[in-house]
């Protein structure tokens, strides 16, 4: 039956125009607006979803417990699908003169790096999910990065984490008593996020006596990467850095296990987590990767209680197992909360003051998260919050079907700490 009646079509047209005319809701005067970029549907959504959930839960928990300085936080969460143009469009909305946000909880490397200039111009601090070293130079003094005075992140940068893992790998090679030079290869997508530590990693690898092989490319989406595994095998690499998030790394781990490749995989902070270990099964056994927090979910620390309370905001049963990214996100959000709190007591919650709030303390751990968040120090000249990298190894000792809580409880999936590397705060390593 064709809808031929013109009245119906006119009605349809009016309704669609009315829908299109809807604009976003107005902001109450006594609230602190914060912009939140989340990736729930794009290339990094596997890790973006728990991180974004944690940020939303943390601010909901903050609001439930009185807000910041008596004011409620209006968190504007948006899924930008890991696409830079959408992030820019959202930023334009948040930096408009009316309704300007006090802070942004950012996400991806490509969009955060693209926004550094705008953030500095509009004076809005951004604590991102991207740990690219190019975001650590507030004044551009290193000569290697653009000035990024309003960019912060909690955790070691990708470059510093890779440097730490290479330091460990060099010792591991010697400890195993293997002859000759170990071979290192960087694997990741041709995208700013996996490429961020490539130069730094390859430079340090050469310095430490590794033979650096040509990098291998595999996309951010899961797929069939047997070709890359066969290249890995034929080149005889000993240590391979996986630059992508867990979802695509799992494809590589499984393909390489099937191909029988004997290589030590080094992941980035987003490269492996408990869900990844469960999905990859024994292919994930032995992967070394850094953890941003001192403990993972359920760990023995006084601050874990706060994290569990925050988790209850979206999971009242308390039964959902939260991956490492959730805990790290709680830390990031709480650092932002304390910076805004400081600003509220020291001249108002404008973006400029909130950025100054990040310089308030040395070896800063947010209240209520003792033993969970690693002490961080940001200064006007150096936005490398922490140079201490905790390296963990994923250990999978059996079949990984079933509930993650059971698997973690029984010890089928374990995250074993192997070493804490304290990198020196070298000016030569600054900004790249």
């Amino acid at each position, binding site marked *: 039956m064709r809808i031929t009646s013109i009245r119906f*079509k006119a009605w349809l047209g009016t309704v*669609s125009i009315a829908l299109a005319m809807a604009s976003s809701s107005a902001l109450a005067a006594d609230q602190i607006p914060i912009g939140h970029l989340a990736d729930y549907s794009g290339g990094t959504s596997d890790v973006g979803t728990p991180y974004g959930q944690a940020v939303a839960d943390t601010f909901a928990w903050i609001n439930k417990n009185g807000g910041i300085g008596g004011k409620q936080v209006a968190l504007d969460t948006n899924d930008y699908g890991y*696409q830079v143009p959408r992030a820019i469009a959202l930023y334009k909305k948040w930096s408009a003169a009316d309704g300007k946000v006090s802070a942004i909880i950012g996400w991806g490397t490509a969009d955060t790096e693209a926004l550094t200039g705008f953030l500095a111009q509009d004076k809005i601090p951004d604590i991102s999910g991207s740990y690219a070293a190019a975001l650590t130079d507030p004044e551009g003094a290193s000569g290697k990065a653009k000035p990024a005075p309003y960019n912060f992140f909690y955790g070691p940068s990708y470059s510093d984490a890779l440097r730490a893992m290479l330091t460990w790998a060099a010792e591991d090679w010697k400890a195993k008593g293997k002859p000759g030079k170990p071979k290192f290869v960087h694997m990741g997508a041709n995208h700013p996020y996996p490429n961020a530590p490539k130069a730094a990693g390859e430079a340090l690898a050469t310095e430490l006596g590794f033979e650096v092989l040509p990098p291998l490319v595999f996309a951010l989406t899961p797929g069939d990467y047997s070709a890359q595994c066969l290249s890995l095998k034929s080149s005889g690499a000993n240590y391979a850095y996986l630059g992508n998030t867990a979802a695509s790394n799992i494809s590589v781990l499984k393909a390489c296990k099937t191909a029988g490749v004997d290589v030590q995989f080094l992941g980035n902070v987003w490269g492996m987590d408990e869900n990844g270990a469960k999905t990859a099964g024994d292919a994930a056994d032995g992967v070394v990767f850094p953890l941003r927090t001192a403990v993972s979910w359920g760990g023995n620390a006084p601050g874990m209680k706060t994290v569990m309370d925050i988790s209850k905001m979206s999971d009242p049963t308390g039964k959902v197992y939260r991956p490492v990214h959730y805990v790290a996100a709680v830390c990031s959000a709480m650092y932002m909360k304390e910076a805004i709190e400081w600003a509220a007591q020291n001249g108002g919650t404008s973006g400029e003051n909130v950025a100054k709030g990040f310089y308030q303390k040395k070896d800063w751990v947010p209240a209520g998260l003792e033993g969970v968040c690693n002490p961080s120090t940001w200064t006007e000249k150096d936005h490398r919050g922490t140079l201490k990298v905790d390296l963990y190894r994923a250990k999978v000792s059996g079949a990984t079907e079933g509930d993650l809580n059971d698997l973690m409880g029984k010890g089928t999936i374990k995250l074993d700490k192997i070493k804490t590397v304290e990198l020196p705060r070298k000016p030569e390593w600054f900004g790249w």
Partner: protein
Amino acid sequence: MASTSFIPSGDFRTSYAADTTIFPTRTSRNFAILGIVALCFAPNLFSAYWLSVSIQIGIFSIAALGLNILVGFTGQISIGHAAFFLLGAFSSAYISNHFPIPVFFAIPLAGVVTALVGLIFGVPAARLKGLYLVIATLAAQYILLDFFSRAEWFTGGSVPASANPFSIFGYTLRGDRQYFYVVLAYVLASYVLVTNLMRTRDGRALVAIRDHYLSAEIMGINLTKYRTLSFGLAAFFAGIAGALYAHYQLVISQEGFGIERSILFLAMIIIGGTGSIMGTLMGTAFVVLLPESMEWISLHLKGGAVDHALSLNTNITFLREIAIGVIIIAFLMFEPDGLAHRWRQIKAYWKLYPFSH
């Protein structure tokens, strides 16, 4: 089909100029001029959000216009349009960054560069028809995308490139309010140019090729020349639009401009009406406003009854993608001639009201 309104008896033209006017009556011309003047006051009245939406509509309508020349008027098809859009964006950034050419001139230059590249791709594509033509334009899309992600000298590789803000003789335009006028000027110029093109000999040749290429060839129209020209023109407008986009966003990234964006451009002209110039603008406005209204709907559905019933949770963002596909199919089924045709029907209904049949 290009619009041919039947002129009632007694309403006759006495010169060719009168016959080929864009506006048939003085009233419609005055309305159009009034509308443009009203738009000039828009930046002061629109909120920041609506201003950015209108600028986006303006920019994409120029690109869609280029595609309409190719698809609606010449009868070809291209699913590589987004790549030319990006090429215009990157070229404009490159030209204004590396050469002492102000952005004011870099934008048309970028259009010319893109047109040249479009001509290169048009040469093989002009001899192909149907499915083979589609695949050839698909190849153009992927070749260009791969080039952008690898050519560090041109685009900076996978890192987004940065473009300068629009400046004219030393005066830099900052903010959406001022950029709106630049986009408005380009939209007006492009639409007047293309409407003019369709009244000329070349425009009629393009339409002839679309309607019946064999007859056109017999009449003496050089098919290859006009098809290639059509590709070049489409690329030119895509390049201009891309350059405007680059200097608006100030950061150019290739994400969101893959094949899905090319399909979206096709959707814009299908929804608006393939052979109609006014339809291009309507179709673009529809397609740009559609995700915005979907976001609004999903925001209000979140946590509500529908969300729980379908257990959408975070998957609510996919509702937007689904909606775009459904709308395209719905338009193809119920309104194949697009919004332009529907608008003409509405006008005709009200012209004879209450005596319409």
